[in-house]
Structures are given as structure tokens and as C-alpha cells.
């Protein structure tokens, strides 16, 4: 079987598990929603919230990313499924790409919900001329986040202390995504007078990040889990 076919199978498997267990719907989305509400408690002023809304959307996404990644690998390590896949001779590259793809789909759902929450709670508007930029930002940022999350999730899985190691490794690594995606979404939504054209260099950065970590991750995943 080709790498892509296996990757698709792994991704479908992950999404099917998710559809059955409903952890995203029942736990992660409410968690992200609560995060958005407590941000409002911390930044007690409407004008501040409106100004920093895009950043808060991405912060909530990063925190939820950690939860999703842990969930994604708990499924594998609980029954030794990851080892079983390796013993079955599946290409680690394919496992990596499949898991990253499934994570991307979950993240995209999460981001759309968080953006809608920002529209309602933080009084954001989505102008029509910013939609293309917004969609491209969501796609590139999601790929970058999924690439990093899957890589470090795979590394940390199966060790004691993985709950603390994962954020320590992941958060500095996704800092460029947080910066880039926040600025790009500010441009797309016109937050604090930002214009759409300012957003494109950031999408470029996000795309380079996603490709670099996608390639680096698919090469590094094998040696990291092959133990």
C-alpha cells in the first residue's frame, strides 16, 4: 500500500474513533469556550477584548491543541496500538501524516467555532474582502499546528510526565504560528484598523512553517517512535 493510502486510513480511523467517543464535541469545544469566557474576566474591558480578540482565538486554539494531541496519542498508547501499527509494518511517515491530517480536521472545526464565539462575545465582524485571507490563514496555521503537535505528541507519548513535557516542547515551537496567525487574522477582520494586504506576508510565514515542520516531522517521526 502506498504511503498516502495508509495515511488516509490512519486519518479515517482517528476521525472514526473521534466520532464515536465525541471527546471533541463533549469536552474540547466546551473547554475552549470556557477559555474564551475567562479571557473576558481577565481583560475586563470591551475595548481591550475587541482589540485582542484574534490573539485570544489562537491562544484558546493552542491550549486546546495540547488537549487534542494528548487525546490523539492516548488512543494509540492505551492498547499498544501504535506498537501494533509499527509491528504490522506501516510506514511511520504514513502514520504521522494520517494522524496530523485527522488532527487538522479537528482543529479546523475548533477554530471555526472559536471564531464564531469571538464574533458573538468579542464583537468581531468578518468583512467580505477578508474572507480569502481568513480561510487561507486558518488552513496554513492548522497544518503547522498539527505538524508540530503530532510530532511532539508522538515523542512524549508513553512516557511518565508526558502531560508536562508536551506543552514545554510544543508551545515554544508553535510561537511563530501564534504570532503569524494572530497578525493575519487581525488583518482579515480589520481589527484596530489593520488592512487585508498586511496579512499576506504572515500567510507566507505560516505556509513555510507548515511545510518545514510537515517535512521535518514526517522524517523525524520514525526515529522518535521506533523504540
Amino acid at each position, binding site marked *: 500500500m502506498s504511503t498516502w493510502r495508509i495515511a488516509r486510513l490512519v486519518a479515517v480511523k482517528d476521525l472514526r474513533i473521534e466520532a464515536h467517543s465525541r471527546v471533541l464535541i463533549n469536552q474540547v469545544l466546551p473547554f475552549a469556550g470556557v477559555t474564551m469566557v475567562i479571557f473576558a474576566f481577565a481583560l475586563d474591558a470591551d475595548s481591550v477584548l475587541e482589540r485582542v480578540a484574534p490573539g485570544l482565538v489562537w491562544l484558546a486554539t493552542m491550549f486546546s491543541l495540547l488537549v487534542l494531541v494528548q487525546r490523539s496519542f492516548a488512543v494509540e498508547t492505551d492498547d499498544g496500538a501504535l506498537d501494533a501499527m509499527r509491528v504490522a509494518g506501516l510506514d511511520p511517515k504514513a502514520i504521522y501524516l494520517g494522524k496530523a491530517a485527522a488532527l487538522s480536521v479537528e482543529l479546523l472545526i475548533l477554530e471555526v467555532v472559536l471564531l464564531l464565539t469571538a464574533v458573538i462575545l468579542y464583537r468581531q465582524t468578518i468583512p467580505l474582502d477578508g474572507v480569502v485571507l481568513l480561510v487561507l490563514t486558518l488552513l496554513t496555521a492548522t497544518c503547522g499546528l498539527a505538524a508540530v503537535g503530532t510530532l511532539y505528541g508522538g515523542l512524549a507519548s508513553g512516557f511518565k510526565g508526558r502531560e508536562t513535557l508536551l506543552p514545554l*516542547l510544543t508551545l*515554544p515551537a508553535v*510561537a*511563530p504560528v501564534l*504570532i503569524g496567525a494572530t*497578525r493575519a487574522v487581525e488583518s482579515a477582520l480589520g481589527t484596530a484598523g489593520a488592512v487585508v494586504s498586511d496579512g499576506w506576508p504572515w500567510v507566507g*510565514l505560516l505556509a513555510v512553517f507548515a511545510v*518545514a515542520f510537515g517535512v521535518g516531522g514526517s522524517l523525524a517521526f520514525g*526515529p522518535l517512535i521506533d523504540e
Partner: protein
Amino acid sequence: MTTIDKEATLQSNRSGTGTRATRILGIATIISMLWLVAFGLGFSPADRDQEEAVRLMYVHVPTIWIAYLTFVVTAVASGIYLFGRSKSLGWDRLAGASAEIGTVFVALTLVVGALWGRLTWGVFWQWDARLTTTALLFVTYVGYLAVRRLGGSHQQRARRSAVIGLLAVLLIPLVHWSVRLWRSLHQEATVLDSDGDIDMDGLMLFSLFVGVVAFTLFYIWLLLHRTRVMALEDLMEDRGLDQALSERRNEAASMNAAVPNSEEI
């Protein structure tokens, strides 16, 4: 090196990890540090604008240069381990020791920089491109060191940390680029700027040079000792395992002796 050789080395070095070479290097480090103190605090002039605060530069700049050097060493040693044929743990220990020293040096740079910032800019911290990149660099290598402590066999540790060591090299330019785009108050590099000219008072430049030499010697001295300590740690762990195995074997043997014909029953 065989286990017996290693044990012989361990026996002969009961006094520590020092050898003749490291002792000479250590003395050279102390002398150059004394030179640095003399030039940095005494002979070099105070700055026109920054006055006495400029003396912090003689620690701030050499430590960050050496930190970059240590991370290059970590990356190269990680690459040699991962792609080389020998899979020698020596490269892994070199990478780990260098990253440990680099992390301490970056921390030193950040602390000295914060003090210098307070004196010249009036604040400890600014969200400037280089400061932010350096802070993220620090956290990235703290993460690398955490990965080294995950456990498992020595070869597992080596492979895992080599991959993370190389990924960090991928990450640093991306972080730098994103933060540069985000904002850029830190004074531009004075010595290594793009036009190649050096705009600095001669004695100040010389003091900085002394600082670089002193910290480089210090780095090499620390690196030699740290890799040796790591080799001893690995040896101790192997020995502990061997010992536990042989104890269990003896136990099994003595139980068999107590029930001589257990197989017949």
C-alpha cells in the same frame, strides 16, 4: 572501549574527571577571566552615553556568542550521531553537554541583558525581536534537556535527543523570522554588522575580545568535564543494571540449590 577499560579509567580517575590537559586549560581559563576582570572593570573606558553600564557588555556579548557556538556543536554532534555509522554515544554526550552549557549561558545573557536594559532603557524587558528570539531559544533548549531525561536505554536517549537537537535548528530561523516581522529597539550588532567595519573604541574592543577568549576557554573546560561526568553516569547505570541482573541470577541459582531435584518432582 570495553567495560573493563572503562572501569580501569574509572579506577584511575578516582580524584575526579580532571587530566593534565584539563588542568592546564582550567588554569588558562582562570588567568583569562582575571584579565577580563582587569580590562572590563579597570582598563577599558566608560561609555559616553551608557557610562559604567557598558561594562556589562563584556559578559553579555561573549556569553551569547558562546551560546550560539554551543548550539551549533549540539546540532553537529546530533547530526553525526544520527547519520553516522558508528552510533557512538560519545557524540550524544557531546551534544548533551554542549546544550546544557549553552542553556546556562543563554540564561546568563538574559539576566545580564535585563540588568543592562534596566540601566540604559529603564526597563528590564522589551518585546524586541532579539530578546524575544533569545527567550524562545532558551525555552527550546530547556525542552531539549527535558527530552534527554525521559529515560530508556542510552541509545534510545541518544536517538531521541539527536532528532530534537536537529529540529531545534529548524525552529530557530523560523522563530527569528516571525519575531523579526513582528517587531524590531535592540541596538544593531556593532561588531558583526553588515558593512564589515568595526565602530568601537580600541580598548573596549580589546576587552570584548578578552571576554570572548575567556568564555571560550571556560566553555571548552566545562564541556570536557561534563562529557566525562556523563560517561561516568552512563557507566554507573550500566553497572547498576549488570549488578541487579547478577544478583537475580544468584538468587535463582541458590533457590535451585535449595530444591535440588525440582525438575524430577
